């Protein structure tokens, strides 16, 4: 059993690849989303000849918010369908932020829709704002599919509440995640009242067809990419823990064996969501980056023991079955433009940088790695990095606190001093949020354009 994975054939082959920058599809996707929203508003516009009176205005505001919420909630689910175009091209981190943002917005729209519609009905019946509650009860009891919709809305509100920052931070990740899965039930339950009581869908068969198409497509994508694809992946590759290696105090590498792992299409810089079928770990899956280019028989992740889950990795016994979903993430070689590359790693953020350091195409002197850690003892994987640097003619630098605890100087000036042509580099970054922010500011100060700084952040 080798403890380092440097110098594999697969990795060497990748270094010979041509550099092919690929544009992120984010802009066309966002345009499509806006076009869809405009289409939904157009639907309302065409089916509403006039809006009369306060009651009419409020009811129609309820209809607009309802239509938009119905449209957006389908997209909120789609964002979490793990569609490769989103996960690998746009980037899992960016899509997750979109999801959080549009999710919050959608819940606000849903609540506005409920309130405005019920208020509008009350006004039309000659009642006042004070009767909204009674009106809601009546509507839920009497209108078709409204009972289901009420349950679904209740679920959405609960899911929204547990996703508020302070609540979520106090909750175990697994609990939060499993509550979140109820979104599917909520969306299913709220779908039917849109069709049966929605004016626009009652009047316009084409609109109804479009709505069924939208929700049907999202359902199909979720089933395909969240259920069927992982099952196929794991049946094909049958992964198991090969060994657990302590790299530095607190940082462990897990070697995972399996069949034809190079066929999974994973690239350096990407991650999988891992589920280890060991007692106490079965029910949670966590994203960890590959810390070496995948080999046909072996993958490696390197993890800092910070949470319950990552600490448990240390106790894994060889032979434990592994369930993986992926590969995900867009922090790959395809992000870079032609030219030199600077990799910046903070702490355990070295893992994707380590894989990229080995595989990014480039001639001698093109690739530089700057590794920040608390002390030289904490420089995990250092021996490997040194060997790769030797073989590739790449530059390897580290920055650690001085013995009296003083932080190293990473500023625009110091970066320019060390790397005089830094403004001609693409920069890949991985590390804690505060570190990444300060490095980002320093890089911008040193003249690196924002579009050439590539960073993945799972801070919401």
């Amino acid at each position, binding site marked *: 059993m080798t403890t380092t994975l440097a110098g594999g054939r697969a990795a060497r082959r990748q270094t010979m690849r041509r550099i092919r920058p690929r544009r992120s599809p984010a802009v066309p996707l966002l345009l499509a989303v806006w076009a869809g929203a405009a289409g939904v*508003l157009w639907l*309302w*516009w*065409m*089916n*509403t*000849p*006039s*809006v*009369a*009176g306060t*009651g*009419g*205005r409020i*009811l*129609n*505001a309820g*209809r*607009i*918010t309802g239509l938009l919420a119905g449209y957006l909630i389908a997209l909120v689910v789609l964002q979490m369908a793990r569609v490769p175009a989103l996960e690998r091209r746009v980037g899992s981190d960016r899509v997750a932020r979109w999801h959080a*943002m549009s999710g*919050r*917005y959608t819940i*606000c*729209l849903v609540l506005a829709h409920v309130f405005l519609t019920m208020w509008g*009905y009350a006004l*039309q*019946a*000659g009642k006042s704002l004070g009767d909204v509650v009674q*009106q809601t009860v*009546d*509507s839920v009891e*009497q*209108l078709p599919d409204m009972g289901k919709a009420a349950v679904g809305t209740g679920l959405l509100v609960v899911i929204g509440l547990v996703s508020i920052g302070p609540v979520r931070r106090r909750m175990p990740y697994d609990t939060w995640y499993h509550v979140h899965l109820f979104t599917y039930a909520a969306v299913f339950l709220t779908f039917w009242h849109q069709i*049966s*009581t929605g*004016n626009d869908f*009652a*009047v316009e068969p084409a609109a109804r067809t479009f709505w069924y198409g939208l929700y049907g497509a999202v359902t199909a994508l979720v089933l395909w990419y969240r259920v069927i694809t992982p099952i196929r992946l794991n049946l094909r590759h049958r992964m198991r823990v090969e060994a657990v290696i302590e790299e530095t105090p607190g940082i462990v590498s897990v070697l995972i064996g399996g069949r034809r792992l190079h066929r999974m299409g994973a690239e350096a810089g990407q991650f999988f969501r891992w589920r280890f079928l060991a007692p106490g770990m079965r029910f949670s899956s966590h994203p960890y980056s590959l810390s070496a280019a995948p080999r046909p028989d072996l993958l490696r992740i390197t993890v800092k023991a910070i949470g319950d889950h990552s600490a448990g990795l240390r106790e894994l016994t060889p032979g434990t079955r592994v369930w993986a979903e992926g590969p995900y993430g867009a922090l790959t070689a395809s992000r870079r433009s032609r030219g030199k590359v600077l990799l910046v790693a903070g702490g355990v953020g070295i893992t994707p940088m380590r894989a990229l350091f080995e595989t990014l195409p480039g001639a001698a002197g093109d690739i530089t790695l700057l590794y920040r850690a608390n002390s030289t003892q904490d420089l995990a994987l250092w021996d490997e990095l040194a060997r790769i640097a030797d073989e590739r003619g790449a530059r390897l630098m580290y920055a650690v606190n001085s013995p009296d605890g003083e932080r190293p100087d990473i500023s625009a000036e110091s970066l320019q001093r060390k790397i005089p042509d830094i403004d001609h580099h693409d920069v890949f970054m991985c590390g804690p949020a505060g570190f*990444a*922010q300060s490095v*980002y500011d320093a890089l911008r100060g040193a003249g690196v354009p*924002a579009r050439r*700084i590539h*960073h993945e*952040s799972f801070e919401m």
Partner: protein
Amino acid sequence: MRKSHPIRRAVLAGAATVSGIVLLLSLKPSSGPAAASAAGAAAQQTAAGQESPQGGAQAAGGGTVTGTVAETQYGPVQVRLTVKDGKVVKADAVQAPKGGLSDQKTATAVPKLDQEAVAAQSARIDAVSGATYTSTGYKQSLQSALDRMKAGAAGSSGSASSGAKGTAGSGGSAGSRGSAGGKGSGVSSGSSAGSSSSGSASGAATARTVTGRTVQTQYGPVQVRITVKGGKIVEADAVQAPKGGLSSQKTAMAVPRLNKEAVAAGSAHIDAVSGATYTSGGYRQSLQSALDQAGG
């Protein structure tokens, strides 16, 4: 990497949404025809022009009466009654759900419902199990046909026009959604007795039928269709009204009254029928939009 300002973003998104919705609502006319609705009205007029008046005024002695279209989840249901000596001698569905499983259900349910209707002489008939929606729609349309039959008997009171209308009415009922005719013509013949027969005969040529927009109420959609002649409403009817359970009863009670009120008032300023405030509210709105279209 951008610094995010969650609060600022939330405020911006909220403000943009609110102003967008307010803008959309203010761009919609509160009354008066928009270009789109005028075009829609024109299309409905041509469609209405092709429909021959059908319905109940002739039913005093004998003939056929067609009920309103009841929209069900699986498609429209419309009942036609053949009346002789004030009694229903035959009932059949001119429209019933079609396609797939619906075909089978229609084939089994409709003959049973037809028989039940003739036997009961009222809309209090049992639903056919396995075809509850169709049964409910059938009962509604049947009720409206029965209402028309009675209104026709009261309104025409032995006038000579009943025979002429009878032949016109029995002609073009198949497939059309029409609920024109019916009580409305009964009322109009009452208001101007001298012109009643010529009015009914030439009605299809000169009268305009305008359908208001569908108004969602708590209990279901309401949509009013009016026939306008010489700038006056000569007939009003609900193409759609709340149905199912208690709603069907309320609709059966309220809609005929609202129809009469609309014709009498010539505007949407009509009293709500107590016990059916939602339907009345929706009716008034749909009526107003129909009047807007007719005026433009």
